[in-house]
C-alpha cells in the first residue's frame, strides 16, 4: 500500500462529483424546483463547472508515466498559474469542502455534496502524506527510428551468460521489461539434437 498516491483517486472522485453537481443543478433549474434559485444555477452549476475545470488536468505521478486526459494541456496552463494554491492539496481539500456545503441544501445536489466531501477527505489524506500536484509537461515528439534499436549480434556463440555477467556494455532499451524465460543454459528434460526433423 506504500506507493498509493491518494491524490489520483481524489482527482477522479472530485471530477465525478463536479459532473454530478452540474447534473443536479441543471435538473433543479430545468424543473424549477422549490428554492432552485438558492443557487441551483449560480452556485452548483458554477461550482460544478469550476470543480470540473480544476480537476480535469491530471497531476503527474511520482513514479512512472502518467496518462493525460484528452486535451488537458490547455487547462494545465491555467491551473499552473495559481502556483501554490493549485499545487497544495490542503487548499484543494478545504476548497472542495467549502464548495460542497451550499449544495447540501438542495435535494437535487445533495449527492454532489456527499461525493465532493468524500473527495475532499481523500485530498486531505493525500496532503498529510506530502503529495503535490505537478503539471504534466509535454515533451517534444521524437521521430521513431526504424531499425535504430537493432545492434550488432553478440560475437560469442551460445550458451551465453546473462548480460550482467558480460563485461561489454549491454544495450540500453527503453522499457526493458525482460521476461527471461531461462537464464543461461536451458535444462532440457530430454536430450536434444541440433537438427529438427
Amino acid at each position, binding site marked *: 500500500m506504500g506507493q498509493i498516491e491518494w491524490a*489520483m483517486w481524489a482527482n477522479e472522485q472530485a471530477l465525478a462529483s463536479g459532473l454530478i453537481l452540474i447534473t443536479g443543478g441543471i435538473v433543479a433549474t430545468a424543473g424549477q424546483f422549490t428554492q432552485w434559485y438558492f443557487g441551483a444555477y449560480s452556485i452548483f452549476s458554477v461550482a460544478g463547472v469550476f470543480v470540473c475545470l480544476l480537476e480535469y488536468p491530471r497531476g503527474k505521478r511520482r513514479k512512472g508515466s502518467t496518462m493525460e486526459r484528452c486535451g488537458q494541456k490547455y487547462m494545465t496552463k491555467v491551473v499552473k498559474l495559481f502556483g501554490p494554491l493549485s499545487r497544495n492539496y490542503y487548499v484543494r481539500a478545504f476548497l472542495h469542502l467549502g464548495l460542497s456545503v451550499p449544495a447540501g441544501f438542495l435535494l437535487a445536489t445533495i449527492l454532489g455534496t456527499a461525493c465532493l466531501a468524500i473527495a475532499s477527505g481523500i485530498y486531505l489524506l493525500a496532503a498529510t502524506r506530502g503529495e503535490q500536484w505537478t503539471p504534466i509537461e509535454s515533451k517534444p515528439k521524437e521521430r521513431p527510428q526504424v531499425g535504430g534499436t537493432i545492434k550488432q549480434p553478440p560475437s560469442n556463440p551460445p550458451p551465453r551468460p546473462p548480460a550482467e555477467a558480460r563485461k561489454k556494455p549491454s544495450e540500453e532499451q527503453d522499457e526493458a521489461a525482460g521476461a527471461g524465460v531461462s537464464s543461461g543454459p536451458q535444462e532440457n528434460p530430454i536430450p536434444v539434437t541440433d537438427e529438427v526433423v
Partner: protein
Amino acid sequence: MANCLLNHWLSVLVLVMWLGLNVFLFVNAFLSYEKGDKYYYTREILGSALAWARASARCLNFNSMLILFPMCRNLLSFLRGTCSFCRRTLRKQLDHNLTFHKLVAYMICLHTAIHIVAHLFNFERYDRSRQSTDGSLASVLSSLSHQEKEGDSWLNPMQTTNMTVIYMTLTSIPGFTGVIITIVLVLMVTSSMEFIRRSYFEVFWYTHHIFIIYFIGLGIHGIGGIVRGQTEESIKENHPYRCAEFFEKWDDHDFHCKSPQFEGNSAESWKWILAPGVLYFFERILRLYRSQQQVMITKVVMHPSKVLELQMIKRGFSMEVGQYIFVNCPSISYLEWHPFTLTSAPEEDFFSIHVRAAGDWTENLIKAFEQQNSPIPKIEVDGPFGTASEDVFQYEVAMLIGAGIGVTPFASILKSIWYKFQHADHNLKTQTAGHAALNFDKATDILTGLKHKTFFGRPMWDKEFSTIATIHPKSVVGVFLCGPQALEKCLRKCCHQYSSLDPRKTQFYFNKENF
C-alpha cells in the same frame, strides 16, 4: 473480415440479447406505470416521472442481478469444463467475463442516473401538491392522510406541510438507502477507472468490496411502500375513469364514488439479487477452500530484470496451455489475489509462473523470495482459469509475438509444442513456430531443436512479414500477440498488408488471444 465476424458472432449475439432484454424490461415497466389504471391517481400527482423511475428501477434490478455472475470464476470454469464438447468460440466467450461485467456496470450507472432524476421530480411534485391549496385533484389526493378511518388511504408520503424533501429523503428507508448506495456506486466507479486500476491496484481492489453495502442497501431499498397504487377493491368502488372528475364529491356519503384506497408496492429487488448473491457467496467460500490446499514450491529461480520464477506442485492440479492462476501470499497481504499466466507446459510435472516486479505486491513478493536466510513464504493458489489457447496448434505456421512479460503464455505454448514433437503427437498441425522476443538484453533460447530466429532490439515488422510470406507460400499463418495496444495496431496492419486472397500466396490471420 469474415474471420473477424466468425470469431465475434457470439459476443455480438450476447450483447444484442442483453440489450434487448434491457429494452424490453424498461418498456414493459414503463407502459405498466404510464398506462395502468392502478396508478392513475398516482400519475395525477407525479406525471410521467413515476414511469421513468419504475422502468429504470426494473432495469437496475435486472443488471444488479447480472453483474455478479461474470465474477464467479470457478462457476465459469465449471461451465467451461462441462461444455468441452462445445465449439471453442463458445467457450472463449466466457473469457470476456470482465468486459461484460464492465458493460453491465455502465448500464447500472446510466439507469441510476435516470432513476435519481425521475425521483427528484417525484419528490418535488409530491411536495408541491402537498403545499398547494388550489383544490385540484392532486391536492385532494395529497390530503388523504394516514389517519383516515378506512385504512391505508394515503397516497402522498409527505404528510405535513413543514416536511421538506431533504428531510423526507434522509428519514425514509428508500431515500436514505438510495443516497447511501449511490455514493457507494460512485466510489466504486471512480476507483475502477483504468488509470487507478493499473497504477494503484489496491485502491481498486479494496474499495470494490463495498459492493456488499450496495447489495444490502438495494435489498432494503424498496421497503416502505412509497410507490403506491390503488387497491383492487378500491378500483371497483372508485374507478378513475368514472370518478376522477367528480373528486369534490368523494366525501359525500350518497355519492357512488368513494375515496380511493392505496397500497404500497412491496420490495422486489431482493427477488432479483438473492440468487446471484448466494452464488457469489459460495464462489468466495470455494475460493477460500481451494486456497487452503497445500502448495509446495519445488524451485525458485531469480532471473535478470527482476523476474521471479516459481515452480510449484499442488495435489489434483491440472492445466492447459495459456491458462492462468490467481496467487496469494499471506505474509504479504491476506486479502490480495493476483493473476499470473502459467509458463509451464501441461506435460511437465510441475506448474510455474514468472513474476515481474510491477507494483507493491509483486515487489514485496520478489523481495520475500530473495532473502536467503528466512524460510520460503507460503503461497496459495486458485485456478487454473481461462480457455486453453489451442488455436495455436491449428495453424501450420504460427507467429507468436510477446512483448516483455507477455512472452509468458508463449513459453507455455512453445514448451508444449516441443513436448508434442517429442511424443510425435499427430494432432499437432504446427510444423514451424517462429518466435520474436522484444527488448531482451540477452539471447533467449527457450527451446533448441525448433528453428527460431533471435533478434536484438525491436524487429522491423515489414521485413519479418515479407520474409515469412516468401518462405511459406500457400500457407495460413496464425499471428498471435500478447503485448501492448500500439503493437497490436502495427501487427494488424502488417497482417492485412501481407495477406493475399490468392491461394498461392500466404494468408496471415491475426489473433489477439485473451491472456
